[in-house]
């Protein structure tokens, strides 16, 4: 199999104005805020089934997600930054999940953990109640496949999310690009 030894960094952008210079202040504030956000992802304690147990394992001493600062799991969506959808989402649960997502303050991130949340599951895709992919309900940032994924996979996924946040832009606003044939 063709394995990329040196994967490229997560697709990011360089924020520059027309003259090609980056705005020092804005881009540094952006860097700072991205640093803070990426290093302090507080997950919502949300788990519906098997994957939730592996999520608990990721919190346990062997895997210890507190090393990355994820250990402040909040029970209320108001104080959470990240919702790890761990487990199957059924049609009855879907409105609840959507509501939880809406209750979270910006900026908020979503990790779809496990096959059930990504596609409806390796087994439950053919069920009358299961939502086939949580991205039908809420936007997802990182997908972690597995049934259930190992705690290492969850940590890797969360690190990928950190990387994604670091390359995102929070305060730089795009100027509308000039059209080439502007009359």
């Amino acid at each position: 199999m063709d394995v990329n030894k040196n994967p490229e960094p997560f697709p990011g952008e360089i924020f520059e104005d027309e003259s090609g210079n980056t705005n020092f202040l804005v881009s540094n504030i952006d860097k700072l805020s991205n640093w803070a956000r990426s290093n302090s992802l507080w997950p919502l304690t949300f788990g519906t089934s098997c994957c939730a147990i592996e999520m608990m394992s990721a919190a346990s001493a062997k895997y210890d997600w507190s090393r990355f600062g994820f250990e402040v799991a909040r029970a209320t969506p108001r104080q959470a930054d990240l919702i790890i959808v761990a487990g199957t989402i059924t049609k009855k649960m879907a409105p609840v999940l959507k509501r939880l997502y809406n209750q979270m303050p910006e900026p908020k991130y979503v990790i779809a953990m496990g096959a059930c949340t990504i596609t409806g599951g390796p087994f439950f895709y053919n069920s009358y109640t299961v939502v086939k992919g949580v991205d039908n309900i809420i936007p997802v940032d990182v997908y972690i496949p597995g049934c259930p994924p190992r705690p290492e996979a969850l940590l890797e996924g969360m690190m990928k999310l950190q990387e994604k946040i670091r390359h995102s832009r929070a305060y730089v606003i795009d100027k509308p690009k000039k059209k080439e044939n502007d009359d």
Partner: protein
Amino acid sequence: MQLSISLLEITRAIDSWLNSAFHPHVAYGIELVLAGVAVILLVVAMAILMVYAERKLAGFMQMRLGPMRVGKWGSMQAVADVMKLLLKECLVPTNSDKLMFRVAPFVVTIVSFMTLVPIAFAKGIQLWDINIGVFYITAVSSLSVIGILMAGWSSNNKYSLLGAMRSGAQIVSYELSGGLALIVVVMMSGTLSISGIVQAQADGWWVIKGHIPVIIAFVTFIITSTAELNRAPFDLAEAESELTAGYHTEYSGMQFAMFFLSEYTNMFVLSMVAATVFLGGWMPFHLAGLDGLNHFMDYIPGIVWFFGKTFFILFLIVWFRWTFPRLRIDQLLKLEWKYLLPVSIINVLFAAFIALMGWYL
């Protein structure tokens, strides 16, 4: 002769320079602002330090490492958390009482800062040497319950309301034993002023001098202050597994951070009070009669003594949190009204008798 430069000399120098450069009133105003900024910076810095220390300590108590990746040994973890909270959206629920909802975190924070006023950090370093210092602290610190009740009521959330009511019942009850525990020392030292109490411990800390009644009072005070802080095992107000987050369920971003900050500030204040009243404040470890030891102890500056004692008590409180399960609300109130309060009242009588007879060391 003392080798170290005491903080008092630094403050005196600043004071004299300001007075020579400006009109005395202006100088006084500048000093007030400086002192305020210093205290706020100190508290924020200590809160950040404490959050980090607590997470590390919790990690070590639970056979794991705690924060590791942000900065060396995860030292910037709490900074990142605070910055993230600052940058996070502050939601105000639609059906809440919006004014009260927004005011509540400020009330709680201001109250907790106010309690810092009469604390003596080192020899002569005190914002306001008020002659009723201990009384002031007990009176003001119980005001925070108003902020908590405001938060719980205005959120329009039943979990918040339950949490706030629990917190109200808890703080109001535990104030009593806490106050009675302080009275023991107040009676023995004969003063309510913080500096007076510290001075009275020049030949030995009260916990040693006052033997049995003060030790009982000290233990009672640690228990009651843990309860007043709403920290485990008395964290019923925010009981995560029962009420999701208690009175601050609906708070997000900076508003939540202010509750968090006030909780930690209260934690410092109560630890500082305990350190001051029972463990001699900035006074070095002195024993009457042992001049060699006393002289040696004097070399360690007062501020080190003070913060050392404070952190010792903070450590105790953190240790409780990561060890004990939570009490139930009726057990919590039973502990206060049926055990702590009678014990404190009898202890006060006992202490009064001892103070009257002069039987302390």
